[in-house]
């Protein structure tokens, strides 16, 4: 028996529609995979999917919750987008998020007598600084000593999460509950709510503003040009006079700072106190969001809303159908894999050979 043979052939030009179609193809494929898994659980996949979307979009409560979930994802997503554009492989948004949350809590529990806008600005600045410093360490290690950034950023997540745990178990343990959680931040340090009877907060505006700032940074500024050039070809960039070391360090600094803002928002906008699990992996989801958005800043808005839908909807679907909400993680994981595989198709085509 003869099997048909297929080869990958490099495309001379990748069509523009393909770039747009890829994420949708990835989403579709991952739903198909998820359907197979749901079938194994002897449940109806269509019913499950219907409930995901109904739960996330069909009610006001669901819709609001979708936006709340999308808020930190926009910030981690854009942080990763910026880093990946400069080929700084920041897998550390999760740790940087916690760094931001830790810093925002610290300033928030000082009970400073400041007007709300000033207090918020202070939280944002200090939170940004904390994440930026956490991000710049692997940045310096990569730029100056060629230490692999994937490894350092990833491992620094664990360090930060244990650091937060140690602080919460020890000095910051809430005396009132004796749970490993901090006391509440000051009332005048809280982000305002944007809509009544909802948890949607100022962090959403912060997220969208930051996304537009990154868009402008990459497109119109000298630093953005340095980042894109370094990302496109580090060796050529250096040869042609770009300060690659400085660019990588600055990329790491800004990316870390932005990821930290997600943590600031979760503390000041949603939880008002620090716990060990304010993030169910928003930092890692940020990577998938950035990939799904094809590293386009504006697309990050839609890509994070989509993940808001999946996360919120999966919880609802789980309550209705009895399928575990971990199916949301499965969808996320598959999207990343499929997206990575499909990016190959942007450069290559599959051709059957005789």
């Amino acid at each position, binding site marked *: 028996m003869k099997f048909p043979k297929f080869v990958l052939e490099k495309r001379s*030009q990748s069509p523009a529609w393909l770039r747009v179609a890829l994420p949708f193809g990835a989403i579709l494929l991952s739903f198909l995979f998820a359907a197979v898994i749901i079938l194994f659980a002897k449940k109806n996949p269509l019913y499950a999917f219907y409930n995901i979307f109904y739960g996330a979009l069909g009610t006001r409560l669901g819709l609001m919750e979708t936006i709340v979930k999308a808020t930190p994802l926009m910030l981690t997503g854009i942080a990763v987008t910026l880093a990946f554009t400069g080929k700084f492989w920041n897998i550390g948004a999760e740790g940087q998020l916690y760094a931001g949350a830790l810093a925002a809590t610290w300033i928030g529990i000082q009970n400073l007598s400041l007007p709300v806008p000033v207090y918020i600005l202070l939280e944002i600045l200090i939170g940004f600084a904390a994440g930026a410093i956490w991000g710049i360490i692997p940045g310096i290690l990569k730029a100056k000593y060629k230490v692999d950034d994937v490894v350092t950023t990833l491992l620094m997540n664990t360090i930060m999460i244990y650091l937060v745990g140690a602080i919460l178990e020890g000095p910051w343990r809430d005396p009132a509950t004796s749970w490993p959680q901090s006391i509440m931040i000051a009332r005048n340090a809280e982000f305002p709510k944007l809509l009544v009877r909802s948890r949607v907060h100022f962090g959403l505006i912060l997220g969208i503003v930051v996304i537009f700032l990154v868009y402008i940074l990459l497109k119109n500024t000298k630093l*953005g040009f340095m980042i894109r*050039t370094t990302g*496109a070809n580090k060796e050529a960039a250096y*040869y042609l006079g770009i300060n690659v070391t400085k660019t990588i360090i600055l990329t790491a600094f800004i990316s870390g700072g932005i990821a930290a803002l997600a943590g600031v928002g979760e503390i000041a906008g949603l939880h008002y106190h620090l716990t060990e699990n304010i993030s169910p992996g928003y930092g890692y989801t940020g990577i998938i969001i950035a990939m799904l958005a094809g590293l386009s800043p504006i697309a990050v808005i839609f890509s994070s809303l989509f993940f808001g839908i999946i996360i919120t909807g999966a919880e609802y679907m789980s309550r209705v159908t009895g399928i575990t909400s971990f199916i949301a993680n499965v969808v996320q994981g598959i999207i990343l894999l499929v997206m990575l595989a499909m990016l190959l198709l942007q450069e290559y085509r599959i051709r059957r050979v*005789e």
Partner: protein
Amino acid sequence: MEKVIVMEKITKTFPGVIANEDIDFYAYRGEIVSLLGENGAGKTTLMKILYGLYSKTSGNIYIKGKKVEIRSPKEAIDLGIGMVHQHFTLVNPFTVVENIVLGMEENGFILELDKAREKVISYMDRYSLHVDQDCRIDQLSVGEKQRVEILKVLFRNADILILDEATAVLTPQEIKDLFKTLKILKSENKTIIFISHKLNEVLEISDRIVVLRDGKVVGETTPFSSDKKSLAKMMVGKDVIDVISQKSKNIGEAILEVKNLSVLSERGHLALKGISFHVKSNEILGIAGVSGNGQKELEDVLAGIRKPISGEIYFNGKNITGKSPKSIIDLGIGRIPEDRMENGIVGDLTIYENLLIERFDCKPYCTSLFLNYKEIRKYAKELVKEFDVRTPSINILTSKLSGGNIQKVILARIFSRSPKFLLASQATRGLDVGATEYIHGKLIEARERGCGILLISEDLDEIINLSDRILVLYGGEIMGFAMRDELTREDIGLMMTGTRKEALSEIS
């Protein structure tokens, strides 16, 4: 005579490109047939189809009268076809003998290297392809590696040999040796297909010449009924003139001085051994030498991407040793890198961004934070027009351009800053005749404006035609300097293989 190869109406399309269109090609037993054409004319594609590396889109192939489908190099080898590629396919840490027998089907579980060694030696004698059979590949010169490649093919009983741009990396003497081997092979009734774009070589060695242009056969001729001029016209489609510079009239003061420069190669060998030379303004100093004799390291050090272990470089009297690329650019030094795709441009950026890259932080192209796209585009449009970059727009990715147009983008970026010194490495490698002519013209123009040029090239004709002075580099040392027209091609060739200029008279 028997036609051992007949290729009938061969068409090969790549996405968006027709590489071969309805090509009819044949070769007789015991014939040396040249495939002549510019880069991108489709010579290599046609031969890769014959060797089973590409599958043809349509057409038929007959080998020794039998219709065949060649799906892989293995099937081609079984049919007696062997190919020597432009880039060698040898295993560096293995010896010559090991490389030759590597992968042969006759090998049993236990390699009988002693037996193979004897056979290799007999082949070397028979075909005049001498290499130390026990040497490791990485200790061999480029010419010797090529001999190993040919031996490998002959060892597999090939009677049809394809040589793809085989002379591109050889010195004049090595080319003579290669031709001697080819004649022996011919006398044994083997068929040789010689791919080249060098006219004099094709005229010297061929029985028959087939000319390709834009994927089609445009003519067939013999060395007896053609000359360089007629061949060039067939190949390019119009009359061509070699750019030969007039000797520079007003050579000035030394603009670049190199003193006792020693540089390590990537692998830690001493690649340049304390060399000293200078380049004057209004002068082209050509560096002749076979690739791998220190040229790359010299280029890297002058470009600022490699630090020397000792010695100094002075530009305009200022010590610039070990300075970063950025400060070298800002001093007014232009660099055309050997690897234009890796260093010359950033392929994933647009044409206007690549034109900008060396001065993106200069006014009026930016303010303290932002880029001024209006000025940038205006500047880019002017340059694209002035340097005749063929592109539908300045907004397309630079990697989409042809090699010649990419080189024009690089030239535009460099010359728009009127450099005082230009480092040009392999500036025309892989370019078609038209683009080469254009670039040679621009280099001479720059020299006339007062620019000092260090021209590194493995194309000896280019060096001889353009340089006011020639420096011959061998094994990281200077074999000597030659003024224009002072030495013959052959003498320079001898120096390229390690004869010092002072010793030339003893040899002749």
